[in-house]
């Protein structure tokens, strides 16, 4: 951030200071002009003050405009820099975090804190410091003891008050955050649990609980408002009393009416840029918390270690061997997500992995794609352990349709081409046709904007789009993670049929919970609780009791 802001930051500070100084100069010159004029000197004695008054008046507006423009420019640059750093930090595979999509949104919001820090906190503080200093210097020239009083008043209003509000805001946000979370939880109960609540006649009670959570939060917020109120009152008091004290001192020492007026009005106006700093202090608590969260993200260790000297990327055709693989998401006493899984994928072979949710199917794919670090065991590609390969190289060899494929807010063409930037229209069309997406593309058009939370893309089209991407990328080993997830039965059946059709003779690892069509794959591996409990071909597995036959029967049953 510092690196990017650089010289522009100084320009912004200068412009801000100049605007505040012009404001100060305007009032000082006007005060001098008026009190001096009352002594009825020759007109020539006033001409400088007249010009100065007009110049300061114009300058104030112009400098303020310049400050706001340069300030926002600096802030935007700083924000862009922060975002870039955040993005760079997120590129290596991440350990799964709690919060998922919400967390990402918050991270992105957090990058805006940098903008707040500059525009609302640092720049005003710097400008206020310069203006305050200038006022004190004016005071020193007129009456040193009054300048001391002014300096004390300004320091209290510009340092002590903001420090106080910042500390209070920190303390209060620590108390309010749990109350807020509790309220959100109770509201979520009402929304997500509405069926359970209504069925068991407990909705009244849940509503009361939500209202109680609201009361608790409101009580805290009411008390928090006192901090803000006290800061406002303190600022008003400091400004008024400082001015009164300065006037008292000036009159007591006989500085004269011109000096007194200049002193008094300068003191009065010098508080104007200083008083808003108390509110900036309140904001600082949030800004610092956001910056701390960003730092934590940046310093988080990636999920997998990259080799210092990566081995050369193996050439297709590829044989993938998984041997005794153990992957753990949470530390030891917990069951590992994968507990000693072995399988072998030779060129042209298709292997399906089935099992209940939470059995470790997606973890297996994550380990293959170098997104999760194994605790023990090996994944070898043509005999080379994937740990010795660069992560990007591994993913160039083994990838495809991953969990939760994403539709970017761009055209259909660009959404596809991210998997094949060099692909010509002919290849794009072929991938789309192979994914049985041709009709839809013909209807929507290649340049249709997709995205906006996938509003324009149905679940089935999304999965097919992801499949088209995978086919366009055409990796030596194609991985497909639950391609029929979240689809209705009919769409799922059609997609699976198409998929099994286009993957014929491709080296493919298919993770699925639908068994229809698996007669065609070379091997089926049943994973339960991280272990392989059954393996074989479809007709072998339906012949023996177990998870596979059970699932098959329920599928048959629901179909009839």
């Amino acid at each position, binding site marked *: 951030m510092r690196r990017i802001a650089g010289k522009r930051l100084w320009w912004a500070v200068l412009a801000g200071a100049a605007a505040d100084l012009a404001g100060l100069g305007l009032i000082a010159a006007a005060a001098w002009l008026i009190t001096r004029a009352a002594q009825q000197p020759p007109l020539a004695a006033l001409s400088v003050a007249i010009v100065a008054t007009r110049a300061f008046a114009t300058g104030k507006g112009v400098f303020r405009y310049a400050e706001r423009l340069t300030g926002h420019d600096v802030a935007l640059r700083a924000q862009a820099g922060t975002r870039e750093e955040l993005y760079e930090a997120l590129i290596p595979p991440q350990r799964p975090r709690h919060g998922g999509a919400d967390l990402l949104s918050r991270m992105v919001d957090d990058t805006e804190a940098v903008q707040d820090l500059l525009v609302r906190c640092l720049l005003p503080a710097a400008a206020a410091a310069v203006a305050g200093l200038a006022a004190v210097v004016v005071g020193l020239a007129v009456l040193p003891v009054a300048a001391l009083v002014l300096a004390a008043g300004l320091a209290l209003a510009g340092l002590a008050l903001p420090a106080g509000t910042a500390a209070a805001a920190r303390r209060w946000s620590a108390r309010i955050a749990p109350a807020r979370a509790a309220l959100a939880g109770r509201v979520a109960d009402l929304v997500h649990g509405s069926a359970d609540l209504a069925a068991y006649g407990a909705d009244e009670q849940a509503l009361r609980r939500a209202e109680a959570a609201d009361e608790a939060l409101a009580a805290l917020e009411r008390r928090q408002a006192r901090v803000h109120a006290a800061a406002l009152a303190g600022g008003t008091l400091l400004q008024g009393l400082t001015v009164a004290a300065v006037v008292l001192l000036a009159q007591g020492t006989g500085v004269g009416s011109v000096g007194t007026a200049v002193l008094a009005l300068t003191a009065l106006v010098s508080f104007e840029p200083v008083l808003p700093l108390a509110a900036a202090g309140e904001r600082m608590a949030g800004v610092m918390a956001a910056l701390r969260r960003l730092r934590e993200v940046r310093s988080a260790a990636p999920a997998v270690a990259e080799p210092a000297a990566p081995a050369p990327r193996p050439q297709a055709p590829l044989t993938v061997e998984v041997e005794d693989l153990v992957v753990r998401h949470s530390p030891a006493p917990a069951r590992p997500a994968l507990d000693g899984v072995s399988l072998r994928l030779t060129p042209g072979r298709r292997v399906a992995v089935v099992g209940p949710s939470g059995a470790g199917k997606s973890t297996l794919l994550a380990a293959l794609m170098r997104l999760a670090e194994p605790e023990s065991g090996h994944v070898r590609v043509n005999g080379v352990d994937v740990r010795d390969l660069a992560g990007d190289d591994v993913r160039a060899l083994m990838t495809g349709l991953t969990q939760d494929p994403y539709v970017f807010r761009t055209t259909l063409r660009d959404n596809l081409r991210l*998997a094949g930037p060099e692909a010509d229209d002919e290849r794009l069309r072929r991938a789309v046709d192979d994914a049985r997406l041709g009709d839809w593309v013909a209807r929507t058009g290649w340049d249709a904007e997709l995205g906006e939370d996938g509003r324009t893309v149905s679940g089935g089209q999304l999965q097919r789009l992801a499949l088209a991407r995978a086919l366009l990328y055409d990796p030596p080993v194609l991985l497909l993670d639950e391609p029929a997830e979240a689809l209705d039965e009919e769409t799922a059946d059609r997609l699976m049929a198409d998929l099994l059709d286009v993957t014929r003779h491709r080296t493919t690892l298919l993770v699925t919970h639908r068994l229809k069509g698996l007669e065609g794959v070379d091997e089926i591996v049943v994973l339960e609780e991280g272990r392989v409990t059954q393996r074989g071909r479809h007709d072998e597995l339906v012949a023996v009791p177990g998870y596979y036959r059970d699932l098959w029967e329920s599928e048959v049953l629901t179909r009839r």
Partner: protein
Amino acid sequence: MHKDLLRLMRTERSVRRHLAVTLAAALLAGLLVLVQAELLAGVLSGRFTAAALGALAAVVGVRALLAWTQGVFAGRTATGVKSALRHRLLARLRELGPGRLAAHRSGELVTLAGRGLDGLDAYLTGYLPSIAVAAVVPLAVLVRLFAADLTSAVIVLVTLPLIPIFGALVGMTTKAVTERQYRALARLGGHFLDVVRGLPTLRAFGRARYQAGVIRRVADEHRGATMRTLRVAFLSSLVLELCASLSLALVAVPVGLRLLGGSLDLTTALLVLLLAPEAYLPLRAMGTRFHASMEGVAAADAAFAVLDTAGDPADDPADDPAGDPAGDPAGDPARPSWAGAAAPPAAGAPEIRLEHVTVRYPGRDGAALEDVTLTIRPGERVALVGESGGGKSTLLHLLLGFVRPDEGRVLVDGTDLRELDPAAWRARLAFVAQRPHLFATSVADNIRLGAPAASDDDVRRAAAAAHADFVDALPEGFGTVLGERGANLSAGQRQRVALARAFCRPDASVLLLDEPTARLDGRSEAAVVAATAELARGRTAVVVAHRPAMIGLVDRVIRLHAGRVLSDTSPPPTPTGDEHAAGRAGGDFPAVPSVAALGDGRDGTRGRV
């Protein structure tokens, strides 16, 4: 000004009072600035003695007190309005009920009723008081100026309107430009979030690094567009700033010249100098506050949009609490339609009859249920099977009273369900949703959801019957507080807590289960099936089922397709299903050693972590 919000504030007495105090404090503090200027001018010109400084200090003290009062009461106003709005929203959510709530985006509702309303703070604590001050203080300053010095007053009077006029002019000429550019901004600003969200996909295709460059380019574009917008948008503030500061110069210079000529006294001149800026300040403050309050206005709009969505009239005739916008919590607006409802038929397993029932959901083609006629005899156990979207869950929701037939009727022992008090009817039901919601309270409280009076022993018995033995292995047993949305239990464990809920209603005579074993692994499934078998004993049971083990429990299988009954077969059609159910429940299945051992086995250890 937000009309709905103002109306809301008027109806809440405490809010009205707090707002009145806030505005009064803001106005008084604004007017006291005039007194302060008067005193200061007098002291500086030598008209008042230094003793007047004491009065000045007193005025400052009172202003500080008023500022404190304003801050405190503005906070109370804000929390009061937010609470009032939130209470209405929550009551509305309950009123919509599970049937119609599904039509809303649930995540957005949760955010709106929670954090979303906080956007109102800036509007209520900043903008509203600033309007009052801007309406009164400049006028008061003008009046005082006219009394003191006509020339200066005229200058201020002429320049003062320039602020709103220039503001409006600049606003109008730049409106189109700024709006277009703000839209571009929103799109570009969204790009970063878009890319970060899609990072796993980019990583899968080796495009993550490439996008770093795109992000930089887009950020540059974003900045360029923003700065173009701001150059114009800040013009209005430049004009305002210039108006105010040049007016001060315009006032000060002639005043100085007239002092020179002796046609004006110093006190008046200083008063004019001190007061002139105070005429402009409130207007500029209001402009700044207005921009900061836009988010709150959007939140209020969203909240009132939810409050104003009229309930489907056919669905719920009593939905419009017309005379009672506050949604009086005691007089539950969803219930009056059943006031004077028929007493629920005698307890004991009832006969349920559907006669030509059709259910349609608004905004959806085709009926969810179409002309369904069937009779479920007392104590009969029925499985509903068929493709998803075939109408199985709708049928359950119909029996629960969450949805009502558009045509036809549902009879319980011959009484139309519409004429039964839904609370009394639901008291006879035990329901396990497909994804039961667990609340962030203790396991015991989750189990006694439908029977708040149940003793600890009742809860334990219910849990044991539901094969939820894993609860004992939790850190604090039945007192263990579950994470948000039951996050620290596995799917199978959650399902068994929900089943225990059903067991904890021993008087329930009708059991409604929505795919209780979906997404469970074999072992959890066996436990749930065994528990369900016990629960169904002696009750009418309607079970949405997919798995053979579950279907093995029933007397009758009804297959639904596209909202119609496709087949209605009495014995379970698959012999393997029977075999399985027996095998699972009996314990001779090799992978499942014994149902009783399951609960405190693997699942128990998993529950601890």
